[in-house]
């Protein structure tokens, strides 16, 4: 009965948007970064803990919509256990996916529910917000990405 709504808001998005599994600050972390979307006020703060050169765990605090929270939550699972280089590759694949509507790497099927934002252009930034913060965190900048203080 909700076909018109479900294309973009698949069950995964709805569930993770409402009750993310990784939506909290890590008690211990070695990298972190904030991201924000000035146009709408959404914010995310991403925390990373590494072990043996790989991302052991990712947690986040976010204020935002179902799409950005679900995206952050899926991100936490997609990068867990990956090297930094691989995590950045995955981020690139997401940035590509939200424009093209497809993700080619079958190992990233987990992220496919985000693909539909490609036809809701104004929501692309919601989906990519946590991924931008991830990039910042991995780059070690730790700054609010791109922000300029008054």
């Amino acid at each position, binding site marked *: 009965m909700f076909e018109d709504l479900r294309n973009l*808001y698949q069950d995964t998005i*709805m569930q993770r948007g409402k009750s993310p599994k990784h939506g909290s600050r890590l008690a211990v972390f070695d990298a972190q970064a904030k991201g924000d979307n000035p146009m709408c006020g959404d914010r995310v703060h991403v925390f990373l803990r590494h072990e043996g050169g790989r991302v052991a765990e990712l947690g986040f605090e976010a204020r935002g919509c179902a799409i950005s929270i679900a995206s952050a939550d899926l991100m936490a699972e997609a990068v867990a256990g990956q090297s930094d280089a691989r995590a950045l590759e995955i981020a690139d694949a997401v940035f590509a996916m939200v424009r093209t509507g497809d993700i080619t790497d079958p190992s990233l099927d987990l992220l496919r529910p985000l693909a539909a934002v490609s036809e809701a252009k104004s929501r692309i930034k919601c989906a990519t917000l946590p991924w931008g913060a991830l990039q910042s965190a991995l780059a070690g900048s730790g700054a609010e990405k791109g922000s300029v203080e008054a």
Partner: protein
Amino acid sequence: MNALIKPAFDVARIRQDFPILGEKIRGKDLVFLDSAASAQKPRVVIDAMVHAMERQYANVHRGLHWMSERTTEAYEEVRDALAGLLNAPDRSHIVITHSSTEAMNLVAHSYGRGILKPGQAVVISAMEHHANLVPWQMLRDAHGIELRIAPITDAGELDMAGYEALLQDRKVGLVSITHMSNVLGTYTPAERIVQLAHRYGAKAMLDGSQAVVHRAVDVQALDVDFYAITGHKLYGPTGIGALYAKRELLDAMPPWMGGGDMIRSVSFEVTTWNDAPYKFEAGTPAILEGIGLKAAIDYVQGIGFEAIAAHERQLTEHALSCLAEIDGVTVIGHAQDRGGVVSFTMDGAHAHDVATLLDRQGVAVRAGHHCAEPLMRRLGVDSTSRASFGIYSTMEEVDALAAALVRIREFFR
């Protein structure tokens, strides 16, 4: 148009004047409830701009040839139309800008840096649009002006006692407050705001970006010193706005931008300024936009603000009662005197998701902080969804909004 034979308000007929309202979105009729962000354009505005581009165009003011003379005349008519709209004494009180944002920046730069003295204060309110906040912050930081924030009540009205308290030390040089909130729909008591400002020796500006669209404004009756408006919300084109100001203020204020048209005579050593309002208008003006806005003003005046206000009141009341019935939906702002803007939140659903899910059903609303972040903080929300009405909005569209919200509510369960 003849004010005497004003036909009864007929929204179906009005809708025919707006070509875009025939569009389909995702196979559904467009339900456009985002007019407070920018209104759609009636046929007469489109035609006026097309006529200018197809048949009568040249640069204005300095041209001696036929096209330039005619275009200058057509363009300058917008100044009379604006003076008429606001009941200004005459066109010399009307500075044409590119938006109300520019109009308020003009005052912040020219009056703010030119006339206000460091140590003086500017009062705004807690429900201002960023356009009536950020320029004053920049003035504060650049020029040593104190910025004071008049509080609002939980209902979303200006707290008049709190406002007056800010004036009492007589350090306030200028008050700048919205005439109608773009988030809450609240009309502020403009006359009292101005009176109190004057009583304590301050000048008063009103941000009329929203108010002027919905009700008749009389700057002389308000005795307001500055009044800012923007054309694209008033069914006119983008890229044009205006500042009304009392003539003695315009005369005293230094110019802001330099360039053609605003000068009297130029040498490398000394330049003298043109008279107001031209002193504040540098460069080639928004010619096509002026011609379009003139048509828009004629159009709304042809309908009449009494009829417009009554229609929008009806829509707003209907919306408020429909939304009140939807479990989990909360309307934000309960001012007694309000215009056609209704903000709301939905429990457990972010405003962006609500807006996107409305859009999927063909209903266009805005969601976010509406360029009023500090107001969001005051209200204790991150963002709201906002439905806003124009002269072409219908009761059926309000029903469509309510029905779509009910579905979203179910979807989120």
